[in-house]
């Protein structure tokens, strides 16, 4: 596999590839590693455009790389709209692009982008009213153009299963792992469900050191992820479900979960929501070009999949985490040409990382207003100006790819599927969230807990760990297990969290 753009010389990470298998993309034979994501395999084969958008047929590439957005949907083995970024590759897989003619690279329908004055939202309510026969012709045209995939050719089969764990933990990031360890060590029967194929959440792609004094670890994130996952693995009363999507908590008190070819109906005694947060794209012109990645999406692409996104990067950020991302791009042996921060220089908190970056030759711009991403089918640069610059003279930086780092908003849909209340909070122009109401025991309601970034408190790894511990102990306590020791543990964790928040 000579043309694979893999990061096999990553200075910090070692990628253990499974065996090489053949697969077919639009009939062309390609090679990839068994078990990596389909998107990763395509990317390594040089594919950058993964889909065409619904209306204007704009080219779209990998963006979130975690199964949330609709950018990478393809037809896989006859099933439409499969998110290739979370579908594992198997031998002889047939992957086909959707909604483009003649090809994703060159799609005639993308001319629609120039007719947008005719295609504004709701245009169909305002046009073809008279005569009626004209609407029927128009309607057929519209229907052919709409829709993304074609219907599948074959049926799928799932096995029905059910379970009644004491504690169900939704999400296997550090908060979920911590909750599971503490609930399981108190004797509860725990089921932890993680959407991706391994536990650890975003720590798995974190190459910087993280200090977790509670368990005496001060190591790169990916090592903490695997060590804590191994700790959890030793509990016999904890079932670990990876590649398992919890899809809903229904009014009839059933939690639905899909895992491989199994459909589980769960009736847990208590639930801990540790679903983390979503990243949102930044808004500027051409913010959807292939080659513009969401921060953690890029981390997955490089540090999980081992793909090489290019030689020159630009990072756009609204908070300090952007500098950590830039550092990790450099850790992978890629140069970061510029960091464009929306904020003013005096709002920066992480001067240490900023200085390291500047010493490594990265130019840092502050008070940036992004004008536009440059490029037609793939990003090739960024154009921005300083807000204080009255003439708005743009600065242009050329690059191979852009990493955007917007605020993250909690992924707490489960909480609001039931009657729990909450509110939207705007902490700064760049930080919004949706916060549920919960007690200091991380309790949302009877037998229902939250931990980690899903709580709306976007904090540090250590805060997420502590929240997980409090929630896990609370869930165990609700089961009438041996008390005093747990209560003391919980009080200690609550105090530690308070001190952490103050600092």
């Amino acid at each position, binding site marked *: 596999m000579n043309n694979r753009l893999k990061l096999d010389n990553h200075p910090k990470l070692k990628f253990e590839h499974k065996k090489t298998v053949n697969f077919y993309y639009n009939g062309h034979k390609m090679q990839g590693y068994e078990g990596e994501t389909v998107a990763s395999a395509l990317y390594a084969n040089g594919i950058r455009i993964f889909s065409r958008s619904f209306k204007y047929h704009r080219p779209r590439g990998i963006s979130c790389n975690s199964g949330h*957005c609709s950018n990478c949907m393809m037809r896989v083995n006859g099933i439409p709209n499969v998110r290739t970024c979370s579908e594992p590759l198997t031998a002889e897989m047939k992957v086909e692009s959707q909604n483009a003619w003649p090809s994703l690279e060159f799609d005639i329908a993308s001319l629609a982008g*120039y007719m947008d004055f005719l295609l504004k939202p709701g245009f169909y309510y305002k046009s073809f009213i008279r005569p009626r026969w004209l609407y029927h012709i128009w309607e057929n045209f519209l229907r052919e153009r709409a829709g993304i995939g074609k219907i599948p050719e074959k049926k799928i089969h799932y096995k029905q299963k059910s379970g009644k764990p004491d504690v169900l933990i939704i999400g296997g990031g550090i908060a979920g792992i911590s909750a599971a360890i503490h609930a399981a060590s108190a004797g509860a029967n725990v089921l932890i469900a993680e959407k991706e194929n391994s536990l650890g959440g975003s720590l798995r792609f974190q190459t910087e050191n993280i200090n977790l004094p509670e368990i005496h670890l001060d190591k790169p994130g990916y090592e903490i992820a695997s060590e804590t996952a191994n700790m959890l693995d030793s509990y016999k009363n904890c079932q670990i479900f990876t590649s398992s999507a919890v899809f809903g908590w229904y009014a009839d008190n059933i939690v639905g979960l*899909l895992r491989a070819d199994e459909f589980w109906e769960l009736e847990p005694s208590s639930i801990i929501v540790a679903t983390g947060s979503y990243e*949102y*794209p930044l808004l*500027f012109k051409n913010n959807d070009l292939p080659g513009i990645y969401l921060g953690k999406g890029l981390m997955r692409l490089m540090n999980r999949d081992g793909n090489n996104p290019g030689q020159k990067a630009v990072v756009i950020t609204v908070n300090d985490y952007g500098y950590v991302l830039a550092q990790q791009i450099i850790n992978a042996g890629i140069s970061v040409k510029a960091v464009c921060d929306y904020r003013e220089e005096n709002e920066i908190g992480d001067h240490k990382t900023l200085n390291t970056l500047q010493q490594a030759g990265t130019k840092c711009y502050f008070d940036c207003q992004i004008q536009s991403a440059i490029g037609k089918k793939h990003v090739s640069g960024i154009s921005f100006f300083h807000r204080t610059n009255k003439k708005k003279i743009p600065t242009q930086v050329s690059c191979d790819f852009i990493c955007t780092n917007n605020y993250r*908003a909690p992924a707490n*849909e489960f909480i609001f599927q039931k009657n729990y209340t*909450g509110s939207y909070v705007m902490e700064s122009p760049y930080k*919004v969230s949706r916060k549920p109401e919960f007690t200091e025991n991380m309790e949302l309601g009877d037998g229902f807990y939250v931990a980690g970034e899903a709580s709306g408190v976007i904090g540090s790894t250590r805060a997420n760990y502590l929240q997980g511990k409090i929630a896990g102990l609370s869930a165990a306590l609700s089961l009438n297990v041996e008390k005093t020791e747990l209560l003391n543990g919980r009080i200690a964790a609550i105090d530690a969290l308070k001190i952490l928040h103050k600092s």
Partner: protein
Amino acid sequence: MGNNKEIVCFCQDVTKEDLIRSIDEGYDNIETLKRYTGVFMGPCQGKTCGMNVLKIFSEKSGQPFEELKVPSIRPPVVPIPLGAIANSNNGKDDE
């Protein structure tokens, strides 16, 4: 205009400009705006556009962000195949 678009809703190609115009046209409630433009209703189920739409809506309508109501969120949280939920013993299989 043209191809330089500021996309808010990646699923249905709704731009920031589109949202502002729709609010001006009188679709000035978040529920109505959703139904008119299609934001929140694409295959990403609002995971890509959600907060950005709310922010634009709050800025344009003058309604403080904190006062927006958290709606009850419809399942499923992730799209799930019909065949996974269907009771296969129930219907006759006619492949």
